[in-house]
């Protein structure tokens, strides 16, 4: 094998104002190698990848590909030099076809016109060459998230890149598609390409990569061949504490502990009967779902995204209208109540998209923490706020949930994703209500925040609340839940006690392969 580095990163530093996001990082990757980059949120992983792909300009340092230096901050030059990146948030144009998206930027032409047919042929060729089947003429908006990601990957491969960068590629995928993607990554490496990828899932890092680098606070603090390290060691390097403490964060066999702590089947708090929800296009996205959640119990809804889980949660929260069916909480029919009435004494809600729904990013941490509590008499004197009481309340949440901010008036958008999520969990889990709705609580947050959030969800159940959890992370569902329901095309395809349902059956049900 050729030992000259396919990619060399030399002393790269990135500063945003006074913040040093990447701090003097050097690394080298060979052709045919899968290199994983791990680290907590805000450790600088995505920024470093963005520098390599020419999206972000480095303050100092250089990148070279096969010995040739790369111009800084130029994505097109990077692509032409053979470096392409599949981003965490998709960059496709939803209203256009797969082929149009893939050839964008180097479209085949006939004279001055775009050659639609040749574009489709090119894409079909790429698709069969890399064994990534896709319909070139499908409209991107109609594709499930796994296929969208496949389009992103083909788009990068259409430039014949030698270095493929993937930013948390499996975060949105169900287990079978995730493992298929890992196979594709190995295949690309076997062809002599270099695959760099970012992941929070240490299990997949260990299973797919040849080498791994750990970033902490912008610095490359460890680098090792995968055979010479272990999951606990990687975790301890990421958070900078000893391996024993890191073990606790990994939550080995958390599920068993949670289940044994369960206080027996409580009385049903949430009762959903024959719920149907129609989306804006008139499509039936929730199609007759019955579900009970008992007090003291965590019920997890899993499934490939887009099978009605999100709409189901919104319907229970009152944000989305129901077409038919009934939602009762604590024996009261709340189907006709609006969000405000449901939040008054019935439910709290940790929403799926924290920046879109859960928080006002430009407002302060304090303003975000008091949302929903702001009308309570204890925070008012007559019609006026008791500013000190509100601050004390917010400060209490900050302490109890280990939210790291410089001051209470700091705009919440300046905090890291994990800290924003901690703030939302703090706020919502403090409401004195019988039911807590939780959607994708740890997506994109680091293991330290994940540990806080998981612990809090268990405490809520232990304190007798009913918790309804939607997650696309099967490990999270298995670790936390007492019961699991698998959504497929708006219905529950499989449901039951978590300890009795096998992972394989869940996987089958998620893909719709399991008959009811």
């Amino acid at each position: 094998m050729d030992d000259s580095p396919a990619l060399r990163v030399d002393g790269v530093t990135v500063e945003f104002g006074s913040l040093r996001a990447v701090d003097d990082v050097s690394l080298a990757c060979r052709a045919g190698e899968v290199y994983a980059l791990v680290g907590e949120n805000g450790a600088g992983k995505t920024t470093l990848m963005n520098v390599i792909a020419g999206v972000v300009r480095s303050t100092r340092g250089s990148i070279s590909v096969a010995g040739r230096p790369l111009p800084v901050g130029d994505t097109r030059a990077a692509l032409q030099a053979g470096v392409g990146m599949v981003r965490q948030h998709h960059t496709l144009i939803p209203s256009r076809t797969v082929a149009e998206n893939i050839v964008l930027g180097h479209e085949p032409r006939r004279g001055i016109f775009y050659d639609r047919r040749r574009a489709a042929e090119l894409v079909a060729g790429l698709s069969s060459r890399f064994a990534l089947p896709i319909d070139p003429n499908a409209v991107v908006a109609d594709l499930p998230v796994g296929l969208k990601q496949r389009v992103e990957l083909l788009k990068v491969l259409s430039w014949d890149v030698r270095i493929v960068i993937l930013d948390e590629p499996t975060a949105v995928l169900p287990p079978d598609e995730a493992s298929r993607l890992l196979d594709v990554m190995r295949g690309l490496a076997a062809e002599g390409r270099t695959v760099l990828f970012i992941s929070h899932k240490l299990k997949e890092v260990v299973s797919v990569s040849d080498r791994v680098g750990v970033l902490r606070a912008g610095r490359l603090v460890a680098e090792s061949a995968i055979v010479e390290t272990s999951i606990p060691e990687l975790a301890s390097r990421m958070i900078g504490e000893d391996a024993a403490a890191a073990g606790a964060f990994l939550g080995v066999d958390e599920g068993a502990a949670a289940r044994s702590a369960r206080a027996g089947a409580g009385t049903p708090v949430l009762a959903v009967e024959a719920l149907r929800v129609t989306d804006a296009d008139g499509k039936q996205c929730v199609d007759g779902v019955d579900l009970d959640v008992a007090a003291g119990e965590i019920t997890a809804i899993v499934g490939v995204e887009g099978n009605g889980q999100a709409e189901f949660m919104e319907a229970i929260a009152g944000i989305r209208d129901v077409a038919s069916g009934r939602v009762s909480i604590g024996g009261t029919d709340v189907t006709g109540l609006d969000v405000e009435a449901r939040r008054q004494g019935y439910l709290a809600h940790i929403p799926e998209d924290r920046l879109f729904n859960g928080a006002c990013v430009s407002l302060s941490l304090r303003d975000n923490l008091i949302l929903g509590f702001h009308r309570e008499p204890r925070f008012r004197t007559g019609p006026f706020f008791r500013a000190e009481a509100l601050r004390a309340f917010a400060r209490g949440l900050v302490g109890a949930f280990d939210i790291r901010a410089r001051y209470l008036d700091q705009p919440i958008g300046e905090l890291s994703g994990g800290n924003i999520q901690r703030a939302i969990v703090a706020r919502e889990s403090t409401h004195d209500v019988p039911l807590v709705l939780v959607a994708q609580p740890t997506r994109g947050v680091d293991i330290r925040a994940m540990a806080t959030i998981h612990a809090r969800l268990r405490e809520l159940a232990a304190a007798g609340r009913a918790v309804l959890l939607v997650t696309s992370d099967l490990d999270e569902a298995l670790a936390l839940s007492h019961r699991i329901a698998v959504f497929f095309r708006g219905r529950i395809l499989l449901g039951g006690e978590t300890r009795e349902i096998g992972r394989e059956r869940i996987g089958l049900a998620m893909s719709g392969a399991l008959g009811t």
Partner: protein
Amino acid sequence: MSEVAAGHLAGEPAKVTRTRSLARIAKEQAANIGWIAAALLAALLVGAIAIRIQGIDPLSAYGAMATRAFGGWRAVGNTLKAATPLLLTGLGTAVVFRAGFINVGQEGQLYIGALVAAIIASADLGTPGWLQILIAMAAATVAGAAWAAWPVFLRVRFNANEIVTTLMSSYVAILAISWLVNGPLRPAGVAVGSTAPIRPAAHLPFVPGTPIGSGILIAVAAAIIFAVVFNRTPLGYEWKILGHNAHTARYAGLRPARLWLLAALASGGVCALAGAIEVLGVQFRFVEGLSPGLAYVGILVALIARFSPAGIVLVAILFGAINAGAIGLEMASGVPAQISSVIQGLMILFVAAQVGLRSLIGRGPRGSH
């Protein structure tokens, strides 16, 4: 990364966090005032070129302006008189914009208030003058509030864009009033479209012992009330949440329709009050063309002040001074009073440019991961 290095909030004594945040607020306010001052300076510099082109020495011209705006009680009275409608319509803009309801119908609301006040203050109610003033202002406020309410209904019920409906509502109001004062309401023997003069007893009094109209006191009181509502009440907080992120508001169970309605009522009321004060304290009857777009300048005042009531008071007085000063300038040197529009327009331009400048100077892009 900063979150690791920064002090841990929970572990610090409460006092430290508080002082720090106050220091930050003070710093931000100082920075805001600094930016507005910079915009004013830049506008005056460019305005000086325009004055110079007319062959007049800009320094002496600006000197004449300053004298006319601040030289003596009478000048101050003129400045504050010009500032009053800008302040009130600025507040009427801040309240709706904060709540994310882009009402631009302030001018029509002002006209309605002016007309209603003129009708009531010119009638013989058999009440003492002060009571008639209060009734006129209250009725004007209610009428303006009512007029501002229906675009909220159109927005909530039919999702009609409020920028269009409120702007149209302004034209409807102004043209309907024009018809009224040229037709049914015009007193016999008067050539221009107007109502009858208001009763002398219903003239808004001066602040005792000064040539300063009491309208400015009403306007400043309104600013204080708005500031308290914005910063110290659940309603102001909910307006802020709704204005910053409507999705969060919906998710948290806030009621946009109700919040927008309250904001629109407050906006319509306070803008109509501006019109009432123009009639009761300045014109003493409703005349067609009563306002040369005062409310639009009020919108600009609110934008420059970033919807802060204290800022609106300051900027309104500044703009009032420019307006009052420009009249003096025209009389002293022949530079048309429209120079005030030039300077105010340039200020807007420079304030708008600051958004870009701040992001260039202040800080680069935020770190992602």
